[in-house]
């Protein structure tokens, strides 16, 4: 055959092997915790193994069935992070004298998240129809982002007002807004990128946009500032503003947007530093040891890292319980203490692999919407991991974001699994082989509204 096309391989068996290894690593964390603390395997080891491997295999089978060309590394990396997160939450559960059982709730959320990912894969199948809902998704995302401000619905926890409480359950609507706004930005920029890429004025070799194109970025800046001031949450506002600026940059290929974004963020940060809540965070970042009572959490996390050292204390042998909120915001400190910097670096590498595969999908995509959506989803994930882990290791001021797939919290878990489902769908569509020849079927007689004169009749 003379004519041949290079296509992606399916690689489903590779995925299966990696899924099994990833799940084994999570389960080994659970087993080692009990071996180190009690000298024996937990009594329910078989049941837990069956359940955990069952969940992973179920996901794998759904991928094999509906998205056979999906990227082979997305599911294993996520299962590795999720497994270690569950094991660490269980390990911290064992610290108080009557042990807690928060891990069960987290496992249920994981199951729900997987279910939603399966729904995304099975029902959506093709992500391109999402492009038609730009403004509805944008509005829905904004409403969710500002929902915690509604009196009676929003609750303030640990100084930040980013939760809502409905029927006894608390949710972080900002996490869902993350997904909706990424889709909305992607479809908006596909439409408007040509206009936004027009260079108005050059300065220092960088082309800057025209003043009249500054409206969208101005709107996003105002929203982020509103979130920052009213919800006192540095993380959420930085996450959304950063996401928008980077997607603008990617879609227009104009570095001028990055400069404008950085300046706007700097101005906002300077203005915000007068707020009491933000000032406390900045003090805890720059001078944590000046005020032990106020900065107990961050100090304790630093001691945890030091006590963990290069190789860590081992599962169950550290004292991560000394840090308040070590299950949620500070779970990377608990990892750093028990698995050492070697283990924490490994997990950051796994996050990086996940992000890299997302960007790889964006590179391989043939249409602008898939490209931008995959870029946005991977970038928002990367930025979130950077902001929260950077906060814990005192590279940045501490923010109240969740560590994806690891920290305790239901909303974050299910939304991140939905992102995984969406990325699997996009990667399947992108990697699926198609013959390059074909013809247009959009403008034939059946779709024609007005009779167009035939080609020869034109002058």
């Amino acid at each position, binding site marked *: *055959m003379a*004519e*041949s*096309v*290079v*296509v*992606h*391989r399916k*690689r489903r068996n*590779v995925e299966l092997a*990696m899924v099994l*290894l*990833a799940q*084994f*690593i999570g389960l*080994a*964390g659970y087993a*080692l915790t009990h*071996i*180190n603390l009690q*000298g024996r395997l937990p009594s329910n080891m078989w049941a837990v193994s069956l359940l955990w491997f069952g969940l992973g295999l179920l996901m794998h089978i759904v991928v094999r069935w509906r998205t056979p060309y999906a990227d*082979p*590394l997305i599911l*294993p*990396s996520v299962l*590795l992070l999720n497994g270690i997160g569950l094991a660490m939450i269980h390990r911290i559960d064992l610290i108080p004298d009557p042990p807690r059982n928060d891990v069960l709730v987290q496992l249920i959320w994981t199951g729900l998240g997987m279910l939603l990912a399966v729904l995304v894969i099975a029902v959506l199948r093709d992500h*391109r129809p999402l492009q038609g809902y730009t403004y509805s998704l944008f509005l829905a995302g904004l409403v969710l982002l500002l929902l915690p401000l509604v009196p009676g619905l929003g609750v303030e926890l640990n100084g930040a007002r980013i939760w809502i409480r409905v029927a006894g359950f608390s949710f972080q609507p900002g996490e869902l807004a993350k997904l909706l706004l990424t889709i909305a930005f992607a479809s908006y920029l596909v439409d408007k990128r040509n206009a936004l890429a027009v260079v108005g004025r050059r300065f220092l070799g960088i082309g800057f946009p025209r003043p009249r194109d500054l409206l969208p970025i101005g709107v996003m800046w105002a929203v982020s500032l509103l979130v920052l001031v009213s919800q006192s949450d540095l993380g959420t506002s930085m996450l959304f503003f950063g996401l928008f600026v980077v997607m603008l940059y990617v879609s227009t290929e104009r570095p001028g947007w990055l400069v404008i974004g950085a300046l706007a963020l700097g101005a906002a940060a300077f203005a915000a530093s007068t707020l009491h809540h933000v000032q406390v965070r900045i003090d805890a970042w720059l001078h944590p040891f000046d005020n032990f009572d106020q900065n107990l959490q961050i100090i304790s996390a630093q001691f945890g890292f030091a006590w963990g050292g290069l*190789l*860590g204390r*081992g*599962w169950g042998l550290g004292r991560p319980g000394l840090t308040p909120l070590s299950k949620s915001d500070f779970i990377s400190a608990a990892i750093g203490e028990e*698995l*050492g910097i*070697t*283990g924490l670096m*490994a997990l950051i*590498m*796994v996050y990086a*692999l996940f992000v*890299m595969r997302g960007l790889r999908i964006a590179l391989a995509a*043939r*249409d*602008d919407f898939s490209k931008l959506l995959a870029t946005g989803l991977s970038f928002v994930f990367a930025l979130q991991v950077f902001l929260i882990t950077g906060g814990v290791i005192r590279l940045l001021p501490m923010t109240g974001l969740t560590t994806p797939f690891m920290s305790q919290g239901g909303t974050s878990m299910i939304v991140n699994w939905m992102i995984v489902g969406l990325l699997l769908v996009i990667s399947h569509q992108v990697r699926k*082989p*198609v*013959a*390059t*020849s*074909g*013809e*247009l*079927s*959009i403008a*034939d*007689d*059946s779709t024609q509204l007005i009779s167009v004169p*035939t*080609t*020869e009749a*034109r002058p």
Partner: protein
Amino acid sequence: MSDILLSGLKIGYLALLWIFILLAVNVIRTDLFGRRVPASELPAPEPRPVKTRNRRAERTPAAPLPGRPAPASVVPARLIVTNGPQTGMAAEVDQAGTYVVIGRSPECAIVLEDDYISTRHARVVNGDQGLYLEDMGSTNGTYVNGRRISAPTSVGTEDEIRVGRTILKLEP
């Protein structure tokens, strides 16, 4: 349990974590090179409602086109990108009464990632008088042998079609 065994398990666990990463990197490495398959085995992008198109082609009067008619000896079978980022991308043009659209839109038969190309830029029509090229109202124009075309132009294997920064040719 002895301390040595505990440290062994601890180190072994960290080693396993990094083995996972090395394996993942190996998966990425082997994923760089795809598999080569004959194009005929692959599914077409979308089902073709050829019938309606043929009917329209029959109805169309075969008016003489500007330019010379395509030489009968060499019948072009496909349109191929010969220069530009997507060199090698090709589409069949040998079916009478059909056309192939070039542009940035994913619905086009030849999808080109080129900022100087319009969403639906131009099309190559296989009409009664052979193949001709038609600009579909593009912003930057369609060029045949360096001259911008304003009307459907007959094209053959020796002509060089340029859209944006991409050059295409017809091949037997």
